[in-house]
């Protein structure tokens, strides 16, 4: 029951909503939240390449967001690079880092892959936290200006929103194209049947590694936009909780679909902002959602809710024998 990667109606509706959003919401605060959602969505999309299409569960995806953000701010605000060259160096170096991390993580698969990505990610966090002379330690790194590409004033929330939305559009197109390409198709083959793929002569390792690097590249793009948005970065951007939030976005939206992570990103960012406005216990909630999803909705939050709705409807109408939740959607995340 894997949803088709392309669904033009969904595409158009989603695009229309995103485009008119600044007119629907009035206050700048909400436009800024929309920008946060778009940036988070790019990160979630790139992680979904690994999880949904490659079956590689990474708990270190914040590495690419954080490193790109640190590099962008360090290069442009502290090392005297221009905006364009700074952005270029930040993204390309982060992609090189993804090559190294991909090489190390893909020495294992499954749980081992997860452990290595987590360890690498947390070591990076430790570096950012402890190497205070370079990264500012716990105080983080700030002082950067948003660029003015083509004379656009990115300090204007609405213009910034369209700026990041443009990147999300490009990311969606590229990732959709990637999934349909021969490489993307074979990646899904290695997810489902690694041994068969190997027998058929595919270089499973290379396919997974290239996809890992591609995902790292888009994580870096998200990091660049993160740096532009906050104009500040602290070790928190590299922390395990950031990776876990990205993972939650992917799982919440339903893995293996193109649009799922975007919806998941919206859910998590909105929830986080709403909760933080009232209480300071976001982390407990994050943990509780993880436990609840795994125990009660192993297919993911959105498909899980849909399945529950279907179940309720069946209970109320026409006395059909209720099917169990996991029987309704066979497509389990985990």
């Amino acid at each position, binding site marked *: 029951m894997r949803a088709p990667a392309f669904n033009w109606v969904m595409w158009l509706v989603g695009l229309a909503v995103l485009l008119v959003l600044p007119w629907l919401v009035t206050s700048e605060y909400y436009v800024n939240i929309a920008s946060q959602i778009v940036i988070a969505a790019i990160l979630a999309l790139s992680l979904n390449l690994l999880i949904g299409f490659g079956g590689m*569960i990474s*708990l270190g995806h914040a590495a690419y967001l954080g490193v790109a953000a640190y590099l962008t701010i360090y290069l442009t605000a502290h090392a005297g690079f221009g905006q364009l060259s700074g952005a270029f160096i930040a993204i390309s170096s982060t992609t090189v880092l993804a090559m190294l991390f991909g090489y*190390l993580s893909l*020495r*294992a698969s*499954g*749980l*081992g892959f*997860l*452990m*290595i990505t*987590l*360890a*690498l990610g*947390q*070591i990076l*966090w*430790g*570096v950012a*936290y*402890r*190497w*205070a*002379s*370079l990264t500012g330690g716990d105080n983080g790194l700030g002082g950067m200006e948003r660029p003015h590409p083509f004379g656009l004033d990115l300090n204007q929330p609405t213009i910034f929103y369209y700026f990041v939305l443009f990147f999300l559009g490009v990311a969606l197109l590229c990732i959709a194209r990637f999934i349909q390409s021969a490489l993307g198709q074979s990646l899904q083959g290695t997810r489902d049947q690694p041994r068969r793929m190997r027998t058929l002569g595919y270089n499973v390792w290379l396919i997974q590694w290239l996809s890992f690097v591609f995902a790292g590249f888009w994580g870096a793009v998200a990091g660049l936009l993160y740096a532009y948005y906050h104009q500040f970065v602290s070790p928190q951007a590299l*922390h*395990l*909780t950031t990776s*876990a939030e990205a*993972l939650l976005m992917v*799982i919440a939206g339903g893995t293996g679909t193109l649009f799922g992570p975007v919806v998941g990103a919206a859910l998590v960012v909105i929830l986080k902002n709403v909760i933080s406005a009232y209480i300071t*216990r976001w*982390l*407990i909630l*994050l*943990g*509780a*959602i*993880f*436990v609840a*999803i*795994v*125990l009660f909705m*192993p297919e993911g939050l959105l498909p899980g809710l849909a399945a529950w709705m279907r179940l309720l409807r069946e209970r109320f109408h026409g006395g059909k024998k209720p099917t169990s939740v996991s029987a309704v959607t066979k497509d389990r995340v*985990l």
Partner: protein
Amino acid sequence: MNFWIIQGLNGLAFGSLLFILASGFSLIFGLMRIVNLSHGAYFMLGAYVGLSAIEAGANFWVAILLGGAAICILGTLIERFILRRLNGQPLAQVLVTLGIAFIIADACVWIWTGDPRRVPMPSELTGAFRVAHLAFPIYRLFVIGVAFALAAALWFLLERSRLGAMIRAGVDDLTMARAMGIRTSLLFSVVFCLGSALAGAGGVLAGPILSVYPGLDTDMLPLALVVVILGGVGSLLGAFVGSLIIGFIYSYGQALFPDLAYVILFLPMVLVLTLRPTGLFGRQAI
């Protein structure tokens, strides 16, 4: 010269603490294929429980027992009522333990506030041990002694007892072990309980050296992961050697290049994963 000896002993002490944490983690992973991401949180929670016990008037040794017992009970409940329901779904189990780790971490901030607290040292172990003109804290020597004793006890348990034979059989081939009539579900409970107790007691033991603070969990967890990646899955010797290696690297690194102590941790991982992905003493790839 003195510097190298003192830092070496510091590294040994830190590696000892790491071993107490990582041995349980490695056993649980090796036998049950569960990457228990709550393990760092158990360590921290154990330390906080011990701290509260001492502040309520208990002595240090009772506090260690209480810390270990509390986490042992918590771990057993989690294993029995959550992890066992997810049997055969390793990734679901990982995510649950991650969620539990977040819940424990935030609850600790809630209960014990965000300030770092030092667990007071037992009075009989304060002071320094002097050889020639070198002075070394007795408490650290004690921690090293505990870790070596624990390593010997675990070795005896695993290699010389009937229970250990069953655990080793389970690590090597779970299906076969079950077919031979070993009650693997009971084995799982025992190992998870033991690992949790070690994490909790280890947290109290670490309290006077590392002190307790929010973030202790995520400081220790990746080190435990690195130890297992280095040493190999489910291998006691691997956990021991890996802990000491990381302890030394960390200790010398922090003394020589404080900024880069964490960067150096990449090095052994890169080497082992490149040259020997099974880990130094592991028989299967992680």
